[in-house]
């Protein structure tokens, strides 16, 4: 289903469909649950479906680049925190070889089904090669 602007905000209009990264439905994320010690960080973390819906809303609203970013973000929801920080560092200037970037793209695609991010990193690798931004 393609979301449109009329579905926004999801918090008000689709809260019965929303769930946390842990899988817990939004309606079960309550003060009582916190007080009972039932919730962890994963219960207050977003997940890919919500980000994809937001991407569709952004596209419908005339913000295609933001939509593309949110689609990449949706792919990254399963990537652990430390790994995200490591990938960011590898993309900084002169950190990686062309082959290492290609391998990173392959890994994201294979491990997390992150095709958009993989294409993004392959594009970076080509530019880094042409513009002397690879590790020397």
């Amino acid at each position, binding site marked *: 289903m393609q979301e449109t*602007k009329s579905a*926004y*905000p*999801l*918090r*008000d209009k*689709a*809260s019965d469909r*929303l769930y946390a990264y842990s899988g817990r439905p*939004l309606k079960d*994320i309550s*003060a009582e649950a*916190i*007080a009972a*010690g039932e*919730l*962890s*960080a994963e*219960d*207050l*973390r*977003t*997940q890919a479906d*919500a*980000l994809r819906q*937001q991407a569709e809303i952004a596209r419908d*609203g*005339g*913000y*295609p*680049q*933001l*939509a*593309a*970013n*949110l689609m*990449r*973000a*949706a*792919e990254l*929801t399963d*990537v652990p*925190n430390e790994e*995200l*920080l490591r990938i*960011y*560092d590898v*993309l*900084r*200037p002169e950190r990686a070889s062309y082959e290492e970037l290609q391998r990173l793209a392959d890994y994201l695609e294979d491990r997390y089904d992150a095709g958009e*991010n993989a294409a*993004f*990193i392959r*594009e*970076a690798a080509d*530019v*880094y090669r*042409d*513009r002397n*931004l690879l590790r020397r």
Partner: protein
Amino acid sequence: MNQKQRSKRFDLLSKRDINRETYVEPWPEAGLIVADSPYDPQPSLTLSAAGEVVEMDGVARADFDALDRFIVSRALDLAVVEEAMALPSENYARMLADINAPRAEIARLVAGCSPAKLTDIIRHLNVLEMMMGLSKMRIRRQPANQAHVTNWREHPALLAADAAEAALRGFAEVETTVRVARFAPFNALAILVGTQTGRGGVLTQCSVEEALGLRLAMKGLTSYAETLSVYGTEMTFADGDDTPWSKAFLASAYASRGVKIRFTSGTGSEALMGRAEQKSMLYLEARCLLVVKGAGSQGVQNGSISCIALPEALPGGVRAVLAENLLAAMLGLEVAAGNDALASHSDIRKTAKLMLQFIPGADFIFSGYSAIPKRDNLFGGGNFDAEDFDDYNVLQRDMQIDGGVQPISEDEALNIRRKAARAIQAVYRQLDLPAITDEEVDAATVAHSSDDMPARDIVPDLEAADAFMAGERDFVAVIRALQEGGFGDVADNILEMGRQRIAADYLQPAAIFDADFKVRSAINDPNDYAGPGSGYRPAGPRWAAMQNIPQAKSPEGFIERHTGPPLSRLVEIGPASKGGRNEVALALGPAFGKALTSTIGGLSHEDVLEAILTGIAGEGMIARILRVYHSSDCAAIGYVGARLSGSGIGIGLQSRGTAVIHQKDLAPLNNLELFPQSPSLTLSTYEAIGRNAARYALGLATVPVAVKIDNGARLRLIVQTALLHRRETDEVDPDKPPQELRFDWEPA
């Protein structure tokens, strides 16, 4: 010219605040030019048959740098580039200023403009036209504001109290930073707890190094980040240890955790870093903005930001800063419009500059209003500080312009500050962090600055911060701590921030949460300005809240202070007739000593009468007192006195204290002496007025009474003047002739 001579005026001017600034002539080769460098490229763009950009702004694809590659690949709407580049720049400029040109049509075409084309459009616009453009192109309908909250002690209770006050004042985002980087988690925690005490839904961030910032966000301690800096040349980008791809990836990483981001750019950074490549600041900013857009950032903070003094040193600098805000809005980006870093020593100059964003409105008029004293500002000093709160509120009230904040009362401030300080105290206690004492809570409640706070032992604080950062505890633990500490409502607000993270609605362009904790973004609150009568303008409860400054008084209250029991010593005895040659007539206004009993300067009417009578008696003349009913006008009152006076000399005296010495042969509106500055008149002045009137009656040479000139009196007292005059006019009886009065008084 005589070198030794010094103009006293130029000497004075040289010491004015405006002359503490640096001014420099343009030098394009060093990038010291705000717009239209002779080395800026001409706009151009060529597509191949396959629809690939093969040339842009005079550079062939083979020579594209990393930014060009990123822009053509990710920022430009290739479906419209040919149409967009073919339309003359002047047409864009006219559309921006024309209320009949739809916002959506401009946005559609701008999506296909190259950096040089964007810069070329600006060439045709003056600041007024750009303000019209910004008011139309801003993406969110209702403007908002962001606050900076820091203090040099990095005191958690003071941070929480100041954040709570900022939230209550209406700031939609609060940003903090660190003096000591290791304090980052605790500073972020303090403003999280503080803001959510003041108002649920205020977004918070802690400006630190990128990786640390992402960690804070992952812990739920911050909800947005705007430290993602971009630059307009490849070399500057590399000096910043990033590429467009690394920054865009970071943006996606933040979004993957439900955290709002905006990028940072701004004129002058490339020149400051020595890598401007002879290009103008505005052209480089246009490149930045296309990178920002291509990365999929929902917005940008620009407006020169920390480099502001550099464009301001150059001609046209403030215009260029508005231009970069406008370009960002045209590209569909949320704009946090600068006005944050100290831009001028001169209050006139800093305020004039602010108007360029304040009047048209921006998604965030400030990308950090310093809601703390300048000395506590760890961002390098704010352009507007806590000391300017009242000034800013009055500007909103003056112009009926929503600057994103509202006035609060002292009691409201004290209450919310105490609650926030107690809430962070409870969190520290429940999480077993170094204790915040009741004494510290008390100090933070009433504090203006770090100077008002007791020192904390920093070593255990830093050790606890390190342990917190390294450990597993995050905002879930904070919510529990607040619940257990008796701050269930604050806990609920942070919990709702967590739910909002899951929904991710606030990742949409220009998103904030309103007073009801409802998201408001360019998706559900898009700017619909299309000329007079359209778009956002403050009305109803919002406008009422903006007007309600604690300093505003009820107009009736101004009158009450000047009323009292009517003068028992002043008795009306019958219609007035003309008297003998040895008298001066003292004609009083209709309310004098009755409805009103003191002058605007606070002198009792009894004392004023005694003073004038003393002056007249001192010259051996008799005073006869009359009351005029048919007019409240000072000249008319005095003229009646002169015509009924046996000597032909009369004094007119209004209840508010304004006096005139009149002579019967003069035109009604002429006079011998007029004393319009009633607030400055003293009892000895009134005695001198009586004396001079008597001397005129005696035909003696007379030196006019010297009155102190107070040019501020009208400014301070014009409301009282108007209201006292109105009260006197209420007593006018047009048909009642002047009456003679007896005042029970003997010369001393």
